[in-house]
């Protein structure tokens, strides 16, 4: 079969994998919804979890789509569609594809025409990040079991441990937001853009969170994070014009 990066067979194979991944998501969603009912979790809580998770996902998903478009120039549409729908993230996939393209001495804007180069890129992107998919089925129960044991032994410490994990992750990303502020000393103010965006998002979250509690408006609490995300992202446009 003659190769091209947008050959219909690629879309068929990718479609099969994405259908399986979708099947897994639907299966776990139905299973968790049934269990929520058995546990007596109110339908209002379940409904708000579903709707706000869906709304929250829209902006990041569109950003992922931007990644698909960017990678599609060299790799066609099918492979980026697969890679950004399963396992990877835009940062990883761009790096992995970039490493393979560099090894092949190709630019990221030229379409790959050699099937063996394309196969190499597919293998690099697949194997390069396969740790999770290979190990998770075998180690999750053990890690989870350890957590449950620890929580049962000392309930207060179990809660603090969880909060500490969340805080540790958030602090790493807060650090990242400030990674380019040092550029200010060389006259480049673009490093302040992420800091300003983060500040807008934080203020929106604080205002909406505070108002929803004070006025007891449920929808405001449900959508505070998606709103802070979207308004924060939107604020990047004027901040970039000003500082960029």
């Amino acid at each position: 079969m003659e190769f091209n990066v947008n050959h219909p067979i690629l879309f068929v194979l990718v479609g099969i994998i994405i259908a399986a991944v979708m099947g897994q998501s639907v299966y776990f969603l139905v299973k968790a919804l049934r269990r929520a009912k058995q546990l007596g979790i109110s339908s209002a809580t379940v409904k708000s979890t579903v709707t706000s998770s869906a709304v929250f996902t829209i902006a990041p998903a569109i950003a992922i789509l931007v990644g698909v478009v960017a990678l599609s120039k060299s790799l066609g549409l099918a492979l980026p569609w697969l890679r950004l729908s399963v396992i990877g993230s835009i940062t990883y996939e761009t790096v992995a594809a970039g490493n393979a393209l560099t090894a092949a001495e190709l630019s990221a804007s030229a379409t790959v025409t050699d099937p063996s180069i394309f196969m190499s890129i597919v293998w690099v992107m697949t194997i390069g990040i396969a740790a999770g998919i290979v190990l998770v089925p075998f180690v999750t129960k053990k890690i989870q079991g350890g957590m449950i044991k620890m929580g049962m032994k000392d309930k207060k410490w179990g809660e603090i441990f969880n909060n500490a994990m969340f805080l540790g992750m958030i602090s790493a990303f807060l650090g990242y937001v400030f990674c380019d502020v040092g550029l200010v000393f060389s006259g480049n103010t673009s490093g302040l853009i992420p800091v300003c965006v983060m500040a807008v998002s934080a203020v929106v979250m604080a205002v909406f969170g505070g108002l929803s509690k004070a006025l007891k408006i449920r929808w405001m609490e449900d959508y505070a994070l998606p709103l802070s995300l979207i308004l924060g992202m939107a604020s990047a446009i004027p901040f970039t014009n000003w500082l960029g």
Partner: protein
Amino acid sequence: MKKQLTYMDSVHRDGRAWGIAVGLLILLFPVALSLVFGAMPNTKVLVQGLVATAPMYWAVGVVEIFTYVPMLGAGGTYLSFVTGNISNLKLPCAIDAMERAKVKASSEEGEVISTIAIAVSSIVTTLIIIVGVICIVPLTPVLESPVLKPAFDMILPALFGGLAVVFISKNAKLSIAPIILMLALFITVPALNAGTVGIMVPVGVLFTVGVARIMYKKGWL
């Protein structure tokens, strides 16, 4: 008599089965392509690409499993490690959902809420990408618009600004040390940036858990 499976046992059983099946499909994709097009990978490109990519991402991947599993819950883990985009989408989504539902990540209620949030997020992401792929021609100028580019570039600061407010306000004392450490590291070490922030997540988590343990033992929390 056959032992009755608990909900958690059944999540692990089903998660393993789905994980192995979908994992095999994903790993067999390159094999299928080679067979269909009758082309083998170019050895030089494959080896150089893997050497540049795999060691770092496998090391990070292994540490991420131990870091993210306790936060995501079992069902959330089995889904997230297949659907990807964990730190920039699935985990914040699950954390926010558990926070609003007022459930603990280590409880069964937390497990259920986290799974619902991550499953919904995975389905919505997949659907949006499908629509985007179908409508790629009219959408490309919009998605690549220079006006919108800054907004898409700033998704992480916008995401973690909001999340930080929730968690720092609830854990003010505990948040001081990790934030100071991470700010100092990211500002002073040039190698730390968007590409390497993933490596710093486990560092931040381990450090914060260590600080929390000391503060807890001293009765400060």
